């Protein structure tokens, strides 16, 4: 087993991985950009190394700086988390050359599965249905348009490499195609450094269902059940749950077999996720395989009791999986809500700021994975995720109610967050009924507005503004008792 691991990430996922290291008795080394010098992952780690300026390209995405930090610290392995370098095959290869273990699949496997057209062929070979698509429409926005028209509208344009919904556009109208292609391409270049696009036929009202797999280097592959991640905004997941409300026993077996088949065909090692779209008639379509830990991995941990990060670390060290397929028993229901610093009323625009007040819920069955603390500045440079709430309960309706209470008790002041929005989603009758599809938020929540402050709240806010106004700002005479607290109580009286 390793004695020291470097975590090439930040935020809640770096914190979560450091905690896993600590549990396993492994020293954890954090890396950080100038914007993160006082971030929680830096203080939690046993050691922390600065790797450059705030811009991710010069710090968290800089392969040389991350590898230098690994050499400098003497770490034997690097956990990439999700995002940043997690699905970068060149980074995985560079780790190998530097004599450091990359905690994840091999560079070749990342390269193959990260190429959506190759991944699709692999799924086809494993007997798993795929979505009709044009994998190589050629360069140029006109070529993308022609490919889309050959396939028939509506279509989805996607970045050929990378995931997370970045560089993705749904196009219904012919005249939108070229603009959408150009815009998807720019976003893909910004996020992944590669502007190649693929064109896929749009599946109507699909559910996003994915399967967690674990594989070791000795040929064992198991699955840990499915997650439904249909609640998405900007093609990014916001709420995930397991088990999926629409998946019954036979379908679960088919999903599991398909995911394990693809992982085997790819020669996959480590934790990975095979994503599918489930259409209205219960047909599966392979979407892609994510060759990393998922943001939503804790809900699988909640129902199976398997620590996926520890499993990744053990497999990377050459150990066999601790569990066989029959050991995996799912118990109860788990839901995750992603808390973002964003404004749901302004098309989910990121809302950076300083966390001025923070109070986390503490309830039975609720886990908070967080990367923020009170007083911290939320940098503008990175993904706006602040934390994740994971609520477990014996059944779905109890889990939904527990999540509602956790959201009620979660207080983050100082930046806009989606907490109120999440409360409205989990209270929505269609969510409560489990009628989910990837267009859920756009269809049911498009007209959502933050509740207006009731008159009483407005009065209290006014009173608090008065109460907390800086001393002297309201016309106190200079030198006439600046330090006298009674001085700022003009117009007030004691009760």
């Amino acid at each position: 087993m390793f004695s020291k691991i470097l975590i090439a990430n930040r935020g809640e996922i770096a914190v979560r991985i450091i905690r896993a290291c600590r549990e396993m008795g492994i020293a954890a080394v954090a890396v950080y950009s100038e914007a993160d010098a006082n971030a929680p992952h830096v203080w939690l780690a046993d050691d922390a190394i600065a790797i450059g300026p705030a811009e991710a390209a010069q710090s968290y995405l800089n392969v040389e700086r991350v590898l230098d930090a690994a050499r400098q610290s003497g770490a034997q392995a690097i956990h990439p988390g999700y995002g940043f370098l997690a699905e970068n095959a060149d980074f995985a290869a560079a780790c190998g050359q530097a004599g450091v273990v990359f905690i994840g699949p091999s560079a070749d496997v990342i390269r193959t599965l990260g190429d959506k057209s190759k991944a699709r062929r692999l799924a086809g070979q494993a007997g798993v249905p795929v979505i009709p698509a044009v994998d190589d429409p050629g360069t140029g926005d006109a070529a993308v348009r022609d490919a889309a028209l050959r396939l028939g509208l509506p279509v989805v344009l996607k970045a050929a490499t990378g995931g997370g919904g970045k560089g993705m556009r749904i196009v219904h109208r012919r005249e939108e195609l070229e603009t959408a292609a150009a815009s998807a391409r720019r976003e893909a270049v910004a996020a992944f450094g590669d502007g190649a696009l693929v064109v896929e036929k749009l599946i109507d009202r699909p559910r996003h269902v994915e399967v967690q797999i674990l594989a070791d280097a000795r040929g064992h592959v198991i699955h840990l059940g499915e997650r439904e991640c249909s609640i998405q905004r900007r093609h990014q997941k916001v709420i995930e749950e397991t088990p999926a409300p629409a998946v019954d026993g036979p379908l679960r077996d088919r999903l599991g077999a398909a995911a394990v088949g693809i992982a085997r065909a790819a020669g996959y090692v480590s934790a990975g996720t095979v994503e599918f779209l489930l259409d209205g008639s219960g047909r599966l379509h392979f979407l892609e395989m994510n060759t990393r830990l998922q943001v939503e991995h804790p809900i699988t941990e909640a129902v199976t009791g398997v620590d996926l990060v520890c499993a990744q670390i053990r497999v990377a060290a050459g150990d066999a999986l601790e569990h066989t397929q029959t050991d995996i028993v799912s118990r109860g229901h788990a839901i995750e809500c992603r808390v973002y610093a964003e404004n749901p009323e302004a098309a989910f625009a990121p809302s950076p700021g300083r966390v001025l007040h923070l109070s986390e819920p503490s309830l039975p069955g609720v886990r908070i994975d967080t990367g923020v603390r009170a007083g911290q500045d939320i940098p503008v440079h990175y993904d706006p995720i602040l934390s994740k709430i994971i609520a477990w309960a014996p059944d779905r309706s109890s889990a939904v109610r527990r999540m509602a209470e956790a959201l009620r008790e979660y207080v983050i002041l100082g930046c806009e967050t989606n907490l109120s929005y999440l409360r409205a989603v989990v209270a929505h009758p269609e969510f409560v009924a489990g009628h989910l599809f990837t267009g859920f938020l756009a269809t049911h929540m498009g007209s959502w507005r933050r509740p207006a402050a009731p008159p009483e709240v407005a009065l209290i806010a006014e009173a608090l503004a008065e109460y907390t106004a800086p001393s002297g700002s309201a016309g106190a005479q200079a030198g006439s008792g600046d330090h006298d607290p009674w001085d700022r109580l003009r117009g007030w009286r004691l009760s």
Partner: protein
Amino acid sequence: MAVVVTVPGARVTIEAIGGGVYAATVDGRRRLVRYAKAGTRRFIHIDGETYVLEDDLPVPGPGGTRPHDDLRAPMPGLVTRVFVDEGRRVAAGDPLYVVEAMKMEHVVRASAAGLVIRVAVQPGAQVEGGAVVVDVDALPQEP
């Protein structure tokens, strides 16, 4: 220490509990409140809900008109593209400019047909959330 604050319409008793937490009493009902102020925004959490109160700061545009709030930069970030010039006619839904932040690209589109009366920022400029980048004057409806 409880302090009564008189605001138009009511008397509110405030007790500071500490760390941004207060007890506020209005009309005999006492409630736990969390409160913080950041620039022009005030955040208040009460009964499980967070409210964001924005101090109104009207920004007059050229000719004294107020720029369309829905055309302002939706977030702080880098203006990567500006699609229009001053004097150009645009239709509802036409892209006006692109702001990029936190790796997300946000296209701001004309909310109604109109005439571009102002392009305040060029591509490459960093803007604050709410900044005026492009302003459009609505055209009278065709008869």
